[in-house]
């Protein structure tokens, strides 16, 4: 993993000191709330319904055990003993006091963490494939490029006051676990026939009020030209992105207005003028790459007797293995996904005790490596098959061994109206009701991959547009209502969901989802996922079933 050096640490110390002085100026009345709001937002500090919320950056979702333990400690000391992992792979504390935040930043800095650029109209936390360095599918380690982007974008003097927020995702696998096509910039690493590494550059995807699947503006960008090319994109956006209307300010609106070809032409013209003066030197890239090189793997047999025996002896473990273990590039190893979607729990929440259990397991069995996924789960990317049963047992004891990865109860939900000042409706209780409906794990497995994503308002923090079933909370004449969409996907086959029909009241949503699933089970053909069936049949049979019941 990447290790901060003295220079990185001094940056954090300077940031922490700056924010401490800003808080002091606000508390003394030297600056107004209006002025302070932009400053606190640049540090991920929001005012929500019940308290302040602090969003801590987890660059490309990568944590070490010391960091996770510190997050647990902060949760216990300054919050109510838990934290909430987000779709940006960050961690939010929901019960923070303004007067504590300078100290919290110092504690974060002590483990090389911060809240820099977790809010504001700047380049936000860069996300990457949570299986980076562990999956055999990838052509390169995307973390190398995510880290390079982290450094380049941190306090970028030209691009810290963009028209609107700006999000990067980097992946290097054909199977996209980062939702790259619905990001402001999605970078997909590819290898050319001659072996050269490059990026497919996707620009102008996004969700929110106007969802778009981003077009590819360059099929192959040589990797060593990344910085100058993204600088060209950001410059075109900074100059021409709309600033007159908050809802039309994202880069997706600019790309759609100009058209993909004209946007690409402007970027290429700007890129030609920039030249290679801002590209990272190969020595720095090599230094970053070196930080991610992993040498701790043992040579193991392809089959683990201990693992096979445990599966045969313990059906619950076998179920966990089926759903939560993913293939690793090294023989005898596995990727362990830890679901933060316990039935009836709040999606993405982890208690301080659970964080400590995961930190201990990572240290003992997982080479000290922990990842956060944009689907609000955790990953131990490097676990020996021999140790999988012990890991499972410890997770089960901590209440985080729910065997539901990618299944119907593995639901993304934003905090919604229970916490968020922007929300129109609650998201969490809807997720809880649906999960309860599908508590039967046999049935959940029969249903197979099904991604439900719930947002409490049109800003789409819960990614509802790209849910196989998307659920959007709306305010209809003062009541909580929910619009359902079908057929969205945030993966390599990205698409925006289609509206099912009129919005449903709060207490009918879980039943409607149940009905949708029944239609799928009835209609599906060999091996089809929910998404595949929907794409084949269209919305009609689903619509008919859900609204037939309403009459």
């Amino acid at each position, binding site marked *: 993993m990447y290790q901060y050096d003295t220079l990185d640490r001094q*940056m954090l110390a300077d940031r922490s000191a700056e924010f401490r002085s*800003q808080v002091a100026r606000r508390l003394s009345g030297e*600056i107004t709330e209006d002025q302070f709001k932009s400053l606190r937002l640049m540090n991920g500090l929001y005012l929500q319904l019940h308290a302040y919320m602090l969003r801590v950056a987890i660059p490309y979702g990568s944590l070490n055990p010391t960091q996770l333990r510190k997050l647990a400690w902060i949760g216990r000391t300054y919050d109510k003993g838990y934290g909430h992992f987000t779709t940006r792979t960050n961690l939010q504390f929901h019960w923070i006091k303004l007067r504590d935040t300078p100290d919290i930043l110092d504690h974060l800095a002590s483990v090389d963490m911060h809240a820099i650029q977790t809010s504001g109209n700047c380049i936000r936390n860069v996300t990457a494939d949570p299986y980076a360095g562990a999956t055999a599918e990838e052509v390169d380690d995307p973390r190398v490029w995510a880290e390079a982007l982290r*450094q380049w974008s941190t306090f*970028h*003097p*030209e691009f*810290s006051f963009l028209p609107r927020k700006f999000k990067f995702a980097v992946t290097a696998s054909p199977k996209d676990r980062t939702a790259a096509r619905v990001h402001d910039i999605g970078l997909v690493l590819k290898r050319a026939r001659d072996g050269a590494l490059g990026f497919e550059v996707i620009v102008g995807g996004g969700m929110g009020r106007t969802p778009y699947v981003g077009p590819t503006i360059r099929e192959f960008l040589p990797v060593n030209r990344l910085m100058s090319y993204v600088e060209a994109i950001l410059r075109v956006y900074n100059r021409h992105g709309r600033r007159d209307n908050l809802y039309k300010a994202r880069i997706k609106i600019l790309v759609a207005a100009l058209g993909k070809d004209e946007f690409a032409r402007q970027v290429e013209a700007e890129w030609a003028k920039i030249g290679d*003066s801002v590209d990272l030197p190969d020595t720095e890239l090599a230094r970053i790459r070196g930080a991610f090189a992993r040498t701790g793997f043992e040579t193991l047999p392809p089959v683990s007797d201990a693992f096979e025996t445990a599966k045969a002896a313990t059906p619950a473990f076998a179920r966990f293995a089926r759903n939560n273990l993913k293939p690793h590039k090294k023989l005898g190893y596995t990727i362990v996904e830890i679901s933060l979607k316990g039935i009836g729990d709040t999606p993405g929440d982890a208690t301080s005790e659970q964080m400590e259990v995961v930190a201990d397991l990572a240290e003992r069995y997982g080479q000290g490596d922990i990842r956060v996924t944009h689907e609000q789960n955790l990953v131990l990317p490097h676990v020996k098959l021999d140790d999988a049963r012990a890991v499972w047992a410890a997770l089960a004891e901590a209440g985080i061994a729910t065997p539901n990865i990618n299944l119907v109860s593995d639901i993304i939900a934003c905090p919604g109206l229970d916490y968020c000042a922007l929300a129109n409706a609650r998201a969490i209780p809807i997720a809880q009701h649906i999960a309860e409906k599908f508590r039967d794990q046999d049935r959940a497995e029969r249903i197979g991959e099904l991604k439900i994503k719930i947002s409490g308002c049109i800003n789409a923090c819960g990614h509802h547009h790209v849910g196989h079933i998307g659920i959007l909370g709306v305010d209809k004449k003062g009541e909580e209502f929910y619009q359902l969409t079908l057929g969205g996907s945030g993966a390599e086959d990205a698409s925006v969901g289609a509206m099912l029909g009129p919005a449903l009241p709060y207490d009918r949503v879980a039943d409607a989802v149940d009905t949708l699933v029944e239609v799928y089970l009835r209609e599906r053909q060999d091996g089809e996922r929910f998404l595949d069936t929907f794409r084949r049949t269209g919305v009609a049979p689903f619509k008919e079933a859900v609204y037939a019941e309403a009459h």
Partner: protein
Amino acid sequence: MPKLIELKDGVAKGVEDPFTNLADDQDLAEGDVIVSLARFQADGERLLSEGRRVGVRLQAGEQVEALVYDLPRLAVVALEFPKYRDGRAYTNGRLLRDRFHFRGEVRAVGEVLREQAGFMVRVGFNTFEPADDASANEWQAAVHRYRHVYQRAADGRIPVFGERAFAERGA
């Protein structure tokens, strides 16, 4: 007269502003003037021929490319921040220095707050009209708040990757 802060050799100092900032409908003043792009395009030749120093004030939506051929004759380019959150002037500043090699004064005007000082200096601004009554000392502290920078910009500062390479060679 607005209070002007000048940054020279890393030191921020309060200075008297020798320029008169002329609105488009304002009668021409004696001496050095800063005018809008529209007024410069209409009267620039005359103003320059009178032997005075001339500056141009660009709104956030105007682009420095419009001045490229006049830059060698201009003493000041003033870049407007209509709102603190409007970041277009950063690109104008950077291009003035990096691409068009402008050596004159680049001035920040509008909603200019000390929180932006570090960013402004990095893209090439060297004079400032703070809207928050920041003193030269406060400006100085804001400019030098960060001991390191992560990326190349117009100020020529060596980014952390350069510092690392240097440390390695030294070791």
